[in-house]
């Protein structure tokens, strides 16, 4: 009898092909056989997908049964006698493969066809049956080719689409021989509701669904890395040949279970774009800076001349040094990037703090979750998420507010949708109805700007329903009586008139959230990007605290982080008021620790934030800037003002991979490395520190960012000698207790470690605040939120509300994604979304240009009908240079977090006349 080292404790003992083997409960015959290294052919079965048992390639003979059974769907029982390779099962397995092969095309579209693999391994001859007439191919989609002639109806794609990603695009239509895979109503893929996540391609065993590009050549090598886009932190594998990425596949990371979205799977080719910066550039003497952004598409480098690295770095450092020495350190500022690694962000802020000598360092966290961070630090002493996305499986109620999850965190959204399919309650609250609302059990489409009214009413309803957690409040919090007093006037009835959600629904949601054994809250920038963003977040935190829905599995607070490393960049101190690990710069003890380590005195005054820095530039206080990987000329509010400020800078050094809008205002442009061209650690929204590995060499003379920062630092007088990312990480560990247990070697081995992780053996804490909050008292503090309006309300001249945000296919300001073939093909032009009835009212047909103006600027985009918008609302993505949404937005700031009000300003809308073509 064979005994297997991995045999589970409560084994089920059965006989497979004459050998007694052990299966664990829940393990199929096929899985048990695989664990013992026995090969049973299978096609419709794929690990991770629900077994369907339709292809019948894995049929086995079970003693005493009349017919054969699929090994993938049958579970061993004690004493069961199974024959997988005898004459009878083998004949059936072979016949199944032969029947399927009969109808396969001659030419293969995939390099690893599982049907061919099994046919070869069973030694199948040429099929003996007449073939069918092959169905036509569908080339309508830019990323995925559909070749149903190679389809074996195994429905792996359907299960991947419907059950894994829960996109529900693929159907199994017709019947009998006419059974076929369809998209929506048997539509061409390119015209269907497909979001091109590519999960179906990854699942297809025969190349019937195949990536259009990247299949022509065989990959030479694979590099495991993570996705460069959003904060979900999907792990992926680059498939490479000759310093080129051929294609990308999802890897089984803890945050993505092999899933990817369209950006992660098809948005990699920006790295090979012809517009990559390949040589340092210096502004020509005869090309003075102008505030208006007037690039010449025929000659994007019109105002610049190529230079050597030596000259460019010298010039860059000279200008910064000169300003520092003449005007003082506070005349300088730096914007780092949440797209760079932890090591880059760490060195960048260290350079500003020690080389520039001030704390004027910030990054786009200011524009996304600054208000969430302020509220979290203030109330519970920690800005990171309390529970990870994967924890939705432990939750009973999931609340999502102000998040277009399916577009902005697509893979995280799949886990939410999975949870709904498991029977969980999903409450979605958003002024805009987006895809995630289609999966919600409850959808509350409240009026824009009334988050606090709605959330306070929910809390008041919790009180009225007597569902507050008295023990939690008594043992874990302070300040509850003030909150309760504050909430009294916020009755569901009174607030219903304000937020537009009926009182009964408010009560129902309050009851569901408060009474469930575990409720978790996710929020996005719909919450944070308001002048009352901090109050919005405070209300959410209060709701979790008053109901005790924090500190346990399936509960807690999860602000969904935007950029791939916005969590990490903030953690390592790329923000003006704190040093690494959120140690305040104005705390002498914290400061002295860093002064000891870094060997010099530090500025005790917190620095300015993103928008404040631009104001200081306008005022003439700041004259020199170093901007790495950020694009304020697109991402800041009130762009006309920002661009004027950038143009007025005495000295601007921009480090980037493309000629961004910001780079147009530069004096020196340093060509940097794209994500796959460097190694570094990145921290996702879940506090998972993951490793991005170098897969390619940078093009031309472009250099690694760590190297560029270090070269500048040396020229600013710092004696730095970091050889590689791991050297920087080692230093970070010394300054940051939260990651002290994470070694570089551990990252290399496991690819992902959750912090806090204090000791090398520590698994990392996936759930925070189980015992206490990291505040001086160990208790959380309630902070009541008053209800205030947006800074700029609609009026007769500007009667519409403008909401800005992102689209699935485009990342941030579009620098990467608009240079990706597939992504650009799917969303090529600026669009503005309005309710179809509103379009009809103002006389614009969908697809026609629409002009949108605010007190600060105007843009023209193509109108798109979107019934998810409320009447009186316009949604504009901010990634399109030719219709930059931030020309319109209001730079009014949340007083606590200094985050601008991207989600609300007053605009006018009328038919546009411009030909945008």
């Amino acid at each position, binding site marked *: 009898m064979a005994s297997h080292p991995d045999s589970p404790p409560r084994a089920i003992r059965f006989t497979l092909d004459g050998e007694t083997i052990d299966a664990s409960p829940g393990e199929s015959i096929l899985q048990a056989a695989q664990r013992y290294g026995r090969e049973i052919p299978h096609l419709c079965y794929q690990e991770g997908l629900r077994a369907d048992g339709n292809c*019948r390639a894995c049929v086995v003979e079970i003693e005493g049964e009349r017919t054969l059974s699929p090994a993938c769907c049958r579970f061993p029982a004690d004493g069961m006698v199974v024959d997988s390779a005898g004459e009878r099962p083998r004949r059936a397995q072979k016949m199944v493969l032969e*029947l*399927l092969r009969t109808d396969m095309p001659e030419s293969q579209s995939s390099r690893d066809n599982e049907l061919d693999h099994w046919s070869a391994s069973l030694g199948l001859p040429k099929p*003996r049956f007449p073939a069918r007439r092959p169905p036509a191919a569908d080339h309508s989609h830019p990323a995925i080719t559909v070749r149903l002639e190679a389809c074996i*109806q195994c429905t792996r794609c359907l299960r991947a689409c419907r059950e894994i990603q829960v996109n529900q695009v693929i159907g*199994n239509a017709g019947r009998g021989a006419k*059974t076929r895979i369809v998209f929506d109503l*048997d539509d061409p893929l390119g015209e269907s509701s497909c979001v091109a996540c590519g999960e179906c391609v990854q699942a297809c065993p025969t190349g019937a669904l195949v990536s259009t590009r990247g299949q022509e050549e065989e990959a030479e090598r694979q590099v495991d890395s993570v996705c460069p886009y959003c904060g979900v932190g999907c792990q992926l594998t680059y498939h490479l040949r000759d310093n080129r990425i051929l294609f990308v596949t999802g890897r089984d990371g803890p945050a993505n279970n092999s899933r990817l979205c369209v950006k992660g799977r098809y948005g990699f080719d920006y790295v090979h774009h012809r517009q990559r910066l390949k040589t340092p550039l210096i502004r020509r003497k005869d090309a003075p800076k102008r505030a208006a952004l007037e690039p010449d598409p025929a000659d994007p480098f019109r105002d610049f001349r190529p230079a050597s690295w030596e000259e460019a770095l010298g010039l860059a450092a000279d200008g910064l040094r000169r300003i520092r020495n003449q005007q003082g350190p506070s005349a300088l500022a730096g914007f780092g990037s949440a797209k760079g690694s932890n090591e880059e962000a760490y060195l960048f802020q260290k350079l500003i703090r020690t080389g520039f000598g001030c704390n004027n360092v910030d990054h786009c966290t200011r524009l996304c979750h600054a208000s969430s961070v302020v509220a979290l630090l203030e109330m519970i002493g920690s800005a990171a998420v309390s529970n990870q996305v994967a924890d939705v499986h432990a939750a009973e109620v999931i609340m999502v507010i102000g998040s277009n999850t399916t577009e902005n965190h697509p893979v995280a959204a799949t886990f939410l949708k999975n949870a709904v399919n498991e029977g969980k309650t999903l409450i979605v609250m958003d002024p805009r109805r987006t895809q995630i609302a289609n999966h919600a059990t409850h959808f509350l489409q409240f009026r824009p700007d009334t988050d606090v009214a709605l959330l306070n009413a929910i809390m008041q309803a919790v009180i009225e329903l007597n569902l507050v957690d008295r023990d939690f409040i008594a043992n874990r919090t302070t300040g509850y009586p003030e909150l309760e007093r504050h909430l009294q006037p916020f009755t569901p009835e009174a607030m219903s008139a304000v937020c537009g959600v009926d009182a009964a629904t408010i009560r129902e949601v309050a009851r569901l959230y408060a009474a469930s054994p575990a409720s978790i809250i996710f929020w996005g920038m719909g919450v944070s990007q308001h002048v009352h963003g901090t109050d919005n977040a405070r209300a959410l935190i209060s709701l979790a605290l008053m109901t005790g829905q924090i500190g346990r599995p399936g509960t807690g607070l999860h602000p969904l982080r935007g950029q791939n490393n916005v969590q990490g960049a903030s953690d390592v101190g790329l923000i003006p008021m704190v040093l690494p690990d959120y140690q305040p710069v104005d705390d002498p003890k914290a400061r002295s620790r860093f002064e000891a380590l870094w060997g010099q005195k530090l500025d005790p005054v917190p620095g300015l934030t993103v928008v404040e820095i631009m104001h200081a530039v306008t005022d003439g206080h700041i004259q020199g800037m170093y901007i790495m990987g950020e694009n304020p000329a697109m991402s800041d509010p009130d762009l006309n003002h920002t661009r004027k400020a950038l143009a007025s800078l005495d000295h601007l050094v921009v480090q980037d991979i493309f000629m961004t809008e910001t780079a147009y205002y530069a004096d020196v442009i340093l060509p940097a490395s794209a994500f796959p061209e460097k190694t570094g650690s990145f921290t996702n929204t879940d506090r998972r520190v993951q490793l991005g590995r170098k897969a390619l060499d940078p093009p031309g003379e472009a250099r690694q960012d760590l190297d560029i920062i270090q070269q500048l630092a040396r020229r600013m007088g710092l004696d730095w000698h970091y050889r590689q990312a791991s050297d920087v990480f080692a230093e970070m560990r010394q300054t940051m207790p939260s990651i002290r247990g994470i070694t570089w070697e551990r990252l290399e081995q496991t690819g992902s470690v959750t912090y806090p992780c204090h000791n090398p053996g520590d698994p990392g804490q996936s759930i925070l605040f189980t015992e206490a909050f990291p505040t001086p008292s160990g208790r959380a503090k309630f902070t009541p939120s008053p209800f205030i309006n947006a800074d700029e309300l609609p009026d007769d001249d500007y009667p519409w509300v403008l909401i800005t945000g992102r689209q699935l296919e485009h990342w941030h300001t579009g620098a990467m994604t608009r240079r990706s073939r597939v992504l650009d093909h799917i969303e090529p032009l600026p669009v503005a979304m309005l309710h179809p009835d509103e379009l009809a009212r103002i006389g614009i047909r969908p697809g026609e240009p629409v002009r949108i103006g605010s007190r600060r600027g105007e843009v023209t985009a193509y109108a798109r009908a979107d019934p998810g918008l409320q009447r009186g609302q316009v949604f504009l993505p901010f990634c399109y240079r030719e219709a930059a949404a931030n020309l319109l937005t209001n730079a009014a700031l949340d007083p606590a977090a200094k985050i601008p009000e991207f989600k609300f300003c007053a605009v006018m809308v009328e038919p546009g006349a411009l030909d945008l073509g």
Partner: protein
Amino acid sequence: MPHQDQAAVRNQRIGPKGRSACPEALSEIRQLLGDAARRPDLLIEHLHRIQDRHGYLAAAQLVALAEEMGLSPAEVYEVASFYHHFHLLKDDQDPPPELTLRVCDSISCSLAGAESLIANLKSALGEGVRLQRVPCVGRCDQAPVTVVGNNPIGPATATGVQAQIRNRAVAPVLPEYPDYDAYRAAGGYQLLRRIQQQRIQTDDPGATAAEQVIQTLEESGLRGLGGAGFATARKWRILRSQPSPRLMAVNIDEGEPGTFKDRHFLEQDPHRFLEGVLIAASVVGIAEVYIYLRDEYAGIRAMLEQELTALRTDPPCPLPPVHLRRGAGSYVCGEESAMIESIEGKRGMPRLRPPYVAELGLFGRPTLVHNMETLYWIRDLVEWGPCWFKDQGRHGRQGLRAFSVSGRIRLPGVHLAPAGITLRELVEEFCGGMLEGHQLYGYLPGGASGGILPASLADVPLDFDTLQPYGCFLGSAAIIVLSQQDSAREAALNAMRFFARESCGRCTPCRVGTVKAVQLMEQPNWNRALMEELSEVMADASICGLGQAAPNPMRCVLSYFPQEVGHGIPS
């Protein structure tokens, strides 16, 4: 290559990805659905409402229905495209003619001249009518059969059908039958009341009423009459041991070509069946009953709706909810788990077993599934005692069987005959002998799936289990009699084409196997070795009975009629 921006403009979307529900279609769907629940299990019912109104399902309607029901368009489309009775209209397609004329081309109707009828009708049909070939509509005793709209005509002639079309006689004609009042006046539902009130008298007065009913069924030897023949009493006992709530699903998807007994009994006495349903529900402890009726039986649907309303309006005793669900043209939905899927509003694709439906059936609940006829006999068995039933039978077999007999005999119809009767006895004693000029050549003992036997095996007792040694089974006891004018090969090919069209498409041996078998069978000389290999694997590895039994007629031709397919006469 066009300029990039031009290409981009062409690609510009004007709304969300995919199709959006248009307001007009949405308001029409809302009006059609009224206050009906939007639960996904009602999808097929809702599709019927649209199809009934328009005669087709347009893309805009499907998208609107999907939105209204909270489903994706793909989920609606895949269900709609599974069932023959839904006519899907693509964006650029014209609506079908207003009237559909269905002509059955299954075996019995073929024997009776369906092909020449189709040819005659095709040349004579005018505007506004389309002809569809359909499989068995359950009226093989009236072959050849056509259905004008919902009005079945048989035996049909081209002129007769045209007259009905001219008169727009498209409504089903309801049979004469004892209605609710008549049934109750004759003592109906008394037994149900007595069982509910624990007042029945049998040999074992100490037992509960439920136990007494089950004992009676046990002694009678009643087995499931849908074809599988599972012992009824045993099924009830298994279900009673399952956790509540338990559900019941009644199978009236009588689609096996040659079978029409369920229709026969329903038209005769619908309440005898309904009382059987309610007795079963009462004894087994059923929370809700679902009756699944094939869409072809439009007349019976109207009758059952009427009688169920009468029953609910003036119930003889407390009743569980009884839902009448409508099939949509799919043979495989007669398979119990496919029927359950269909009741759940899905494609009628059989499930893998285990788990068995008795444990995990409709809506994930333990489910008692019965063929209609099984329930029809319950009242008689309890009232008249098990011996009345058990003591019938011939050649060592026990009980009565309702044979649906069609083909080359004088008296086609449902004949209640002793189990174990031979084909020769059945034809002579019950069917008035062979038709003039026809001599017995062979017969299909169990519809399209039960195989084909030669005249030399006409003395084998017909019952459950007696035909297995010959590679056949009795199934639903649908006997089609062939004469020397007929070809077993043609009958087998007709059957295999039927299976290929009716396969749900889920598993490879059936989906691909039936199509390849048809191609092989179309050859004048059959490839015996390959066919036998294919047959064995279809029987061994298909998910459900459809694929497992599909090779039976082909195998029987090879065994008993080899001379028809280029092989020697068997020794």
